[in-house]
C-alpha cells in the first residue's frame, strides 16, 4: 500500500522509536486482531527507529518486573526470553563514604525482586522486535522522526523523517536525501525520555502534566568477569555515597550471568553541586569496596548513558492527542521509587495496542476513540503504582531523610498520604554557583574495570558522520560566558560523553561523541542547549546494554 512517489508514503499505524513500548504496542495490536478473528485485513504497522539497528539506543539495568509480559507474550515466549539469570540473592546497601557501607539486612518490600528476569534490555528489545516482525510489523532503522505532520485542524497525520547527507555547513552532499513524509491514521510516540516529537506534541497541544518532568542520568557498564556460576542472579542496590544527602542517587550491580556484570549509577539531575562530574561519580561508586568486590578481575566491555524520567505521576503528560498516542518513558511512565519503567512501558504499549485494535475494527481513529488507551491506563495496575509513589521523589531533593519517610508513608498508605502534590523544582534551576575550593580530586587510578571517560566512550560504540551540522545548538553564546564565570561550565562535567570542553575561555563541542542522553538540554542552568536530531543511523551502538 505504499506509494513511492515524491510526496508521501502511507501506512495505517506508525510508531516512532523501536523501544519496548512501541514494540509492545505493535505486538498487542496485531495479535489482538488476529486472535479476534474476523475478516478485516490487518493494518500496516510501521515502526521507525533512528539508530542503525534495533536496540542500539536502548539502555537499562535491568531487573525486569515480569508483569511486563502480562497479556503480551505466551508462556513459551517468556521461557525463551534472552536472559541468563533470574534474581536470586538481593542486597541493599547504604554507602556512608568512600570506604564504608551499611548493609540493610532487609530489602525494602518495594525493592524486592526475587525471581525477576535479569538481563540486557537491548537483547530483550531485539527479541521483541523479532516477535513483532513475525506478526507482520515492519521495522525500519536509520530513520528519525524529525517533524510531526499535522492537518489544518492540528490533527497529527504522520511524520516527516530527517534529512540525510547534509554537510557541516548545512549544504547538500552528493548523497543528500531529503526526509520523507509518511502518513498514518495514528502516530504512536515511543521515543523514550526527552523524545523530540513527544516534546513538540506536548507543547503544541498543551498536554503538560502538573509539573515539568524531572530526570536522573544513568551511566552503565557491562563488565566481563572471570566465570563464576555461583554469582549469576546476585544483585545489589545502593544509595548514599557518592550522592550527598540532598541528591537522589543510587547504584546497582547485577550479575546477569556467570561472566557478565552490569554496574550502573543514576544521579538525580536536580542536584545542586556545580562541580559534580557524572563520570567521576560513577568511577567513585565502582571504586567503593562494596561494589569493587563484585568487579574483581573484570574488564569493561561496554558503556552507555541515558536519562530516566523520574517525575512520577505529577509529571506524566496527557498521553492522547488528536491522531497521536504517547507510550513508555516518553510519557514519564516510570516508578520513581523502584526505578522501574520497563514493565510500565510494555504494559502501556499493550493498552495502546488494544485500543488501536478496537479503533481499527471500528475504523475510528478519532480522538475519542484513541482516548480508550488513556482511560484503560488510568484503570490499570501501572497507574495504581504511579499513584502510590507520586510524592516519593520530590522530598528527596530536600533531604534523604524526608524522602525515606515519604517513601515509607506512600508504601503504607498506598499513596494516599500526603494527598497534595509536594513541590519539586525543575532540574535546570537547581544548580548552585561553583565554589572553586570544592573540586574533588580525581578518583582512583585507571584500570580495566575503571577506565577514563574517553576509553569508556569508545566502548559505547558511538559514532557520527563528522561531516554534518553539529546537532547540539547553543542558542546564545553570550550565556556561555556567564555560565563559565558562575558555574564553571558544568556541561563539561554533566555530559557523560566528553562532548563539551572549555578551552581558551570558549566551549568546544565534539558532537560526534554524543550518547544521545540529552542531559545537557535538561541540566543547562540557562536552558541554552537544544539537542536536535543528528543524521539517523548515528549515535551509540549498544549491543548488550
Amino acid at each position: 500500500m505504499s506509494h513511492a512517489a515524491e510526496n508521501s508514503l502511507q501506512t495505517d499505524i506508525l510508531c516512532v522509536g523501536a523501544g519496548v513500548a512501541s514494540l509492545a504496542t505493535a505486538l498487542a495490536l496485531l495479535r489482538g486482531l488476529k486472535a479476534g478473528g474476523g475478516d478485516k485485513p490487518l493494518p500496516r504497522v510501521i515502526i521507525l527507529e533512528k539508530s542503525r539497528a534495533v536496540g542500539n539506543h536502548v539502555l537499562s539495568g535491568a531487573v525486569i518486573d515480569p508483569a511486563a509480559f502480562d497479556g503480551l507474550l505466551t508462556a513459551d515466549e517468556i521461557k525463551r526470553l534472552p536472559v541468563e539469570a533470574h534474581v536470586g540473592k538481593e542486597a541493599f546497601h547504604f554507602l556512608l563514604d568512600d570506604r564504608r557501607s551499611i548493609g540493610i539486612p532487609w530489602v525494602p518490600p518495594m525493592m524486592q525482586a526475587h525471581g525477576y528476569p535479569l538481563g540486557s534490555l537491548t537483547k530483550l528489545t531485539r527479541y521483541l522486535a523479532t516477535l513483532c516482525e513475525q506478526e507482520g510489523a515492519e521495522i525500519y532503522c536509520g530513520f528519525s522522526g524529525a517533524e510531526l505532520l499535522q492537518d489544518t485542524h492540528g490533527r497529527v497525520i504522520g511524520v516527516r523523517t530527517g534529512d540525510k547527507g547534509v554537510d557541516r555547513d548545512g549544504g547538500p552532499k552528493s548523497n543528500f536525501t531529503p526526509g520523507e513524509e509518511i502518513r498514518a491514521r495514528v502516530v504512536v510516540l515511543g521515543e523514550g525520555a526527552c523524545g523530540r516529537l513527544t516534546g513538540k506534541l506536548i507543547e503544541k497541544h498543551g498536554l503538560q502534566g502538573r509539573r515539568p518532568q524531572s530526570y536522573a542520568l544513568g551511566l552503565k557498564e557491562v563488565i566481563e568477569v572471570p566465570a563464576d556460576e555461583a554469582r549469576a542472579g546476585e544483585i545489589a542496590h545502593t544509595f548514599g555515597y557518592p550522592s550527598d544527602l540532598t541528591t537522589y542517587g543510587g547504584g546497582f550491580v547485577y550479575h546477569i550471568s556467570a561472566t557478565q556484570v552490569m554496574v550502573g549509577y543514576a544521579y538525580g539531575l536536580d542536584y545542586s553541586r556545580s562541580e559534580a562530574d557524572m563520570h567521576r561519580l560513577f568511577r567513585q561508586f565502582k571504586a567503593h569496596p562494596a561494589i569493587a568486590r563484585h568487579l574483581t578481575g573484570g574488564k569493561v566491555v561496554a558503556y552507555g548513558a541515558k536519562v530516566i524520567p523520574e517525575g512520577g505521576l505529577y509529571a506524566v503528560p496527557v498521553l492522547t492527542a488528536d491522531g497521536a498516542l504517547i507510550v513508555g518513558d516518553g510519557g514519564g511512565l516510570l516508578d520513581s521509587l523502584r526505578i522501574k519503567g520497563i514493565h510500565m512501558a510494555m504494559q502501556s504499549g499493550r493498552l495502546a495496542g488494544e485500543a488501536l485494535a478496537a479503533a481499527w475494527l471500528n475504523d475510528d481513529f478519532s480522538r475519542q476513540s484513541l482516548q480508550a488507551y488513556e482511560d484503560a491506563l488510568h484503570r490499570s495496575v501501572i497507574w495504581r503504582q504511579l499513584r502510590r509513589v507520586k510524592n516519593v521523589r520530590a522530598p528527596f531533593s530536600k533531604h534523604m531523610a524526608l524522602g525515606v519517610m515519604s517513601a515509607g508513608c506512600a508504601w503504607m498508605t498506598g499513596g494516599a498520604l500526603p494527598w497534595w502534590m509536594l513541590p519539586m523544582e525543575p532540574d535546570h534551576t537547581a544548580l548552585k554557583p561553583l565554589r572553586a575550593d570544592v573540586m574533588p580530586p580525581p578518583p582512583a587510578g585507571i584500570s580495566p574495570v575503571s577506565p577514563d571517560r574517553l576509553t569508556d566512550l569508545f566502548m559505547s560504540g558511538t559514532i557520527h558522520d563528522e561531516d554534518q551540522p553539529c546537532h547540539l545548538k547553543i542558542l546564545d553564546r553570550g550565556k556561555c560566558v556567564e555560565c563559565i564565570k558562575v558555574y564553571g561550565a558544568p556541561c563539561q562535567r554533566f555530559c557523560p560523553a566528553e562532548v563539551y570542553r572549555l578551552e581558551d575561555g570558549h566551549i568546544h563541542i565534539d558532537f560526534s561523541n554524543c550518547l544521545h542522553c540529552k542531559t545537557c538540554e535538561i541540566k543547562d542552568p540557562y536552558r541554552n542547549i537544544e539537542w536536535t536530531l543528528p543524521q539517523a543511523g548515528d549515535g551509540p551502538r549498544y549491543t548488550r546494554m
Partner: protein
Amino acid sequence: MELRASDRTAITMHIIVCIKQVPDTANVRINPETNTLMREGVESIVNPFDEYALEQALQLKDRHGARVTALSMGPPQAEVVLREAMARGADDGVLLTDRAFAGADTWATSYVIAQAIKKLNPQVDMVLFGKQAIDGDTAQVGPGVSEFLKFPLVTYVRALTVADGRYTAETMMDEGIDVVEGSLPVVMTVVKEAAVPRFARLGGWMDAKHAKIPRWGVKELKAVPELCGLGGSPTKVVKIFAPPVKAGGIRMDGRELPSAAVQAVVKLLHEKGLAS
C-alpha cells in the same frame, strides 16, 4: 517497483552486484587464550566496498536504464543486505544459501557465485564487486568469478561510463590512474574513491519489504557439492591467533636532555632503513 518512463524503453543492460554481509570488523577480536573469535556484540553490516559497487550500478541505471540484480552468498540472515540493496534501487535480489557453501575459501566462493550468474541470465553485461571484503581482505573473489565466467577483469574502478556495449573505467593503480577501455561483458571491482553511496529511502524499504528474494542452493545452481564450501576449498586455515600486542618500549625524558632522546630516535630510524 514502478519504472520511470525512460526506463521502459531503455532497459538494455543487466548489471549484477555481488554483496557480502560481514561482521563489523572494527569490533571483532580474538580471545588470545582459546584462539576463538569473540562475536559477542559484533553486528553484521553490508561490506562497505560493496556499497560503492552498488552505487556505481545504480548510477548507470539512473543514466542509461538497466536492470540491477543484487547477489549474495551467505546464511539465511544475509538476506537483509539484499533487501537493503533493493531499498536503494536494485531491481532484484538473490540469496545463494546452502549448508554446503559454508566454510568456502575464495575459490569455492567464486565457483558458487559464477554458477549463480550463469543461471541468472545469459545476457549479463556487467558484474560488479567491491574491491575486497573487510573480513577476508583478500580481494580474490572478483577475479575468481571473472575466471569462471570467462569475462575480462578490470580492478580498482573509481569511475565508470558505458556506451554502445563498451566501458571506460578509471582504475586506481599503484603509480596513478589508468583509464581503461574495453567491451562488455566485464567483471569489475570498485574502490571507495568511487561515488558516495546513496541512502536507501524509506519508500524504497517499504517496497523492498514485500519483494520475493529467491534462495538458491546446490540444487538450483547445479553446483557440484565437492567444489563448494570447506570441502571444495584448496586453502585451509590451519590456525587463527591474536596479533602480537604492542607493548610499551623505552621511555626517555626529553625535557632536560632533548638531544639524547633525538639521537635515540635517529638510531631507531636508521635501523628501519630511514633517515640515512
